[in-house]
């Protein structure tokens, strides 16, 4: 029997996968950096992320640097890791991460799959297509 599953991405970030994602994509993961680059103050043009206070913007536990002007903050909140960033266009992140951060989700999911394959000692190969990336896992 063969089948196709559609999976909905869930925002459950774990630090090790984030590190591996950064390594694979050529991004920086800066450990223990407590401030990420952003506009610098919240001017009220968009809502503050759920669970955050205005004065917490710009503060973080680690930083992801994808090679543009602004950075992504990795923040521990209520026992979970959250990613926060300023999506002002000139900061460069919207282009780099794609609409609704689709490219970030893609990179993170790929890192998760690689991790599971290595854990189970499964061989895999990767391919980049127009509009998608894929990992083919050999199960024999």
């Amino acid at each position: 029997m063969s089948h196709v599953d559609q999976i909905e991405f869930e925002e459950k970030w774990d630090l090790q996968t984030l590190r591996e994602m950064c390594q694979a994509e050529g991004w920086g993961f800066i450990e223990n950096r407590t401030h990420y680059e952003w506009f610098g103050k919240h001017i009220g043009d968009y809502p503050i992320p759920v669970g955050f206070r205005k004065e917490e913007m710009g503060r973080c536990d680690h930083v992801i640097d994808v090679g543009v002007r602004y950075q992504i903050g990795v923040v521990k909140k209520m026992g979970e890791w959250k990613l926060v960033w300023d999506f002002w266009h000139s900061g460069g992140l919207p282009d780099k991460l794609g609409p609704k951060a689709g490219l970030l989700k893609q990179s993170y999911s790929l890192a998760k799959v690689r991790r599971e394959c290595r854990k189970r000692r499964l061989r895999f190969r990767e391919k980049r297509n127009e509009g998608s990336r894929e990992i083919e896992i050999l199960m024999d």
Partner: protein
Amino acid sequence: MRGKKVVVRISDDGKIELEAEGYKGEGCQEATEFLSNVLGKTIESKKKAEWWFRNGRDVRRIREKFGINTNKLCG
């Protein structure tokens, strides 16, 4: 015979698709389960055309003709 494989396809908007190929029986669900568990929530699961053509017969037609639930049968 084609080998067993799982293809994980992730589009630029973050949508994830898992495809199991070359399996017979329930093994294909197990093959993708370890990935679907870590990647997110399964919102849809579709059997591919070959699932419906087992042992050279079109199971879907047999099911429709006799009203048999074939979902629990191996492929």
